[in-house]
């Protein structure tokens, strides 16, 4: 704990920092377990009021990174800053965390669990109760407050944990696979909450391997593989820099003329619909002309690459 903790110069910082300073900053962070690097020189920052996606395959080092960010473990080297200052426990009051490995006290009621977690996060019992009431109403969980956790379904429990992470109104929200195990209706509900929180100026780190969710939600991403950043930046920049090489064609006729075409790198043909990737430097117009000669083309669309495609490409390159 630094001695400067309560220095007056820091007191006025919080509101100013919130507007401009990154909520999280990682500088060359490393962490090994038993000689095996889990995080290997990772650097990124999460700007305020942004949703940031930390992506990567299983075992890429996402959870290890998050654990260092919120002080559960310490990096072997490198620096973690929260709200512009080196990480200290007091700053964690401004962090809400939904871990991938989640749990609640099964024999306690939902209300008691939330009050307890709220107290640990620094809330008074009365404030906790007020907020529990508001959140459970908003998420349609008001009837569960007096029920024991063990009586709830997994999806219901997950909603309660979501509330637990947000109860103390954190400025940084860290969510590890927040939608895992949720049905589409609940996923949509929680997505709306996250979007609302971003609009309210909260920074959100969202760790997942579900690319479709990231594409819809995130402003910027960091793709990690084997503890290293493979790709990072704003989502639009990343898509642009990966070129418009993806084409979808709806057609009638025999699609065999597309197979083995010199301009096409890879092809997924569904009979009346094909998805393909052009070779580097290939011209989509040229392909359209070829296709029109052999097929009746109903729709021809040059697309941004999906994040999943970029992900598979980048991670595949490393494998």
């Amino acid at each position: 704990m630094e001695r400067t903790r309560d220095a007056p110069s820091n007191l006025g910082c919080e509101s100013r920092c919130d507007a401009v300073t990154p909520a999280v900053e990682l500088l060359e962070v490393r962490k090994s377990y038993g000689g095996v690097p889990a995080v290997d020189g990772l650097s990124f920052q999460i700007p305020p009021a942004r949703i940031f996606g930390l992506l990567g395959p299983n075992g890429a080092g996402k959870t290890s990174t998050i654990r260092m960010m919120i002080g559960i473990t310490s990096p072997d080297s490198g620096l973690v800053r929260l709200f512009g200052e080196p990480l200290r426990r007091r700053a964690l009051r401004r962090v809400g965390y939904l871990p991938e490995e989640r749990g609640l006290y099964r024999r306690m009621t939902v209300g008691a669990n939330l009050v307890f977690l709220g107290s640990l996060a620094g809330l008074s019992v009365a404030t906790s109760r007020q907020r529990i009431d508001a959140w459970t109403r908003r998420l349609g969980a008001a009837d569960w407050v007096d029920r024991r956790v063990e009586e709830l379904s997994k999806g219901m429990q997950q909603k309660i944990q979501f509330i637990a992470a947000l109860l103390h109104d954190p400025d940084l929200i860290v969510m590890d696979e927040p939608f895992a195990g949720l049905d589409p209706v609940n996923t949509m509900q929680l997505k709306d909450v996250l979007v609302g929180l971003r609009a309210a100026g909260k920074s959100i780190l969202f760790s997942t391997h579900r690319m479709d969710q990231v594409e819809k939600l995130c402003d910027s991403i960091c793709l990690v593989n084997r503890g290293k950043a493979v790709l990072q930046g704003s989502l639009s920049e990343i898509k642009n820099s990966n070129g418009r090489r993806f084409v979808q064609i709806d057609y009638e006729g025999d699609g065999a003329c597309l197979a083995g075409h010199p301009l096409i790198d890879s092809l997924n043909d569904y009979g009346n619909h094909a998805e393909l990737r052009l070779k580097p430097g290939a011209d989509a117009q040229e392909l359209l002309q070829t296709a029109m000669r052999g097929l009746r083309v109903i729709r021809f669309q040059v697309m941004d690459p999906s994040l999943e495609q970029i992900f598979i490409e980048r991670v595949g390159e490393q494998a």
Partner: protein
Amino acid sequence: MSEFSIHKVWIVAKREYLERVRTRSFVLSTFATPLLMGTFLIVPTMITASTARNIMLDSSRPARVVIASDNRALAELARGELTRQRGTPYAASVLSPTSPAAREQLDSRLDASGIEGYVWLDGPALASRKVVFTTRRMGDFVLQRRLGAALSYAFAAQRMVNQGGSPGEVAATLQPVDLTALAAGNSSAVFNELRGAAVVFIFLFVMVFSLLSYGVMVMRSVMEEKSSRITEVLMCAASAQELMAGKILGTGSVGLTQIGLWLAVAALGASRSLYLRTAMTALDVGPSLIVYFVVFYTLGYLLYSAVFAGVGAIFNSIDEAQQWNFVVILPLIAAAAMILPVATSSDSPISVAASLFPFSAPILMFERLAVHDPPPWQLAASLLLLLATIGAAMFISARIYRTGILMYGKRPTIRELSRWLRHA
């Protein structure tokens, strides 16, 4: 990141405490333990005491014993001695002389439960003084002790009579000594053998039982949090040290509450019931004994719960923990096994060493304080060693806890554990 918040420890402890005292098992064990204790400790003590004092057994149905002897006078002396006291629970008759037919008859009376046993004093037995008592009550050691004493009396008395002593002189010479022990330095505290045993055993039973059950409770609680995966949420809000300290304090307070309830009920009972008051006085429960008990119980609990918390963090299931659990429980069992030797020879070097060894000190130093005043330096050394060991155990356990509670699946090797210790 080394900030330690007492407030968070308090919040964690409060949850732990409230959750535990509200459980059915707490209510059950609070009521069942005194009953069990009564069954296992007080009842046998009472029966032994009562039998010894001949006040408990129904004298209308005394234990019937036959003394068969070729020396009728000796048999009569033994019979008289055995049944001398008023309200004696024994009825004895004499059969003289002995014969094989008489023995067969005695055996058949034994089989038909007509008598509880017979002493066979034929010529060789009289010469060698090696006497056989055939009985259906093998376990009644009081009867056997009494009978042995009566026969010894008879042999001695007859010899004195043969040498010309009058019956009055003989009786006066052989009158047994009534021994009462007085605790040194406290003339009002009569330390009778039976009372002392009862005090020590009740308190020691409670201590061993509580240390074990609340230590294991801390371990289970750590495992529950680990297996319910709530630990990671908690770790973001509080440090491992805060969580462990809260858990140990909360669970420990449950133990103290339980013991406090027992003491309160005993005190309330004593104020209302003459019988209980007599019992409490007989058990010689003074304030200093209770203070010693609370101090040593608390220290013992802090030590064992710290170790148990570490063990809980290492393993993933109770089954897995079971075999290592034993290593932790072993010193407690060893200390329990030392209770009797320490009671009988409180100042022997082994007793002193065992009462200084931190893992047995809570039980055995308390016992020595209860039965005898050990030198103050030994008490001080015991407390200091205990406190130092608690500090070390907390330090090591907190480090193991910090890493262990986030490790799921594989059980760590000793090498991994030492790495946790170094790098936590």
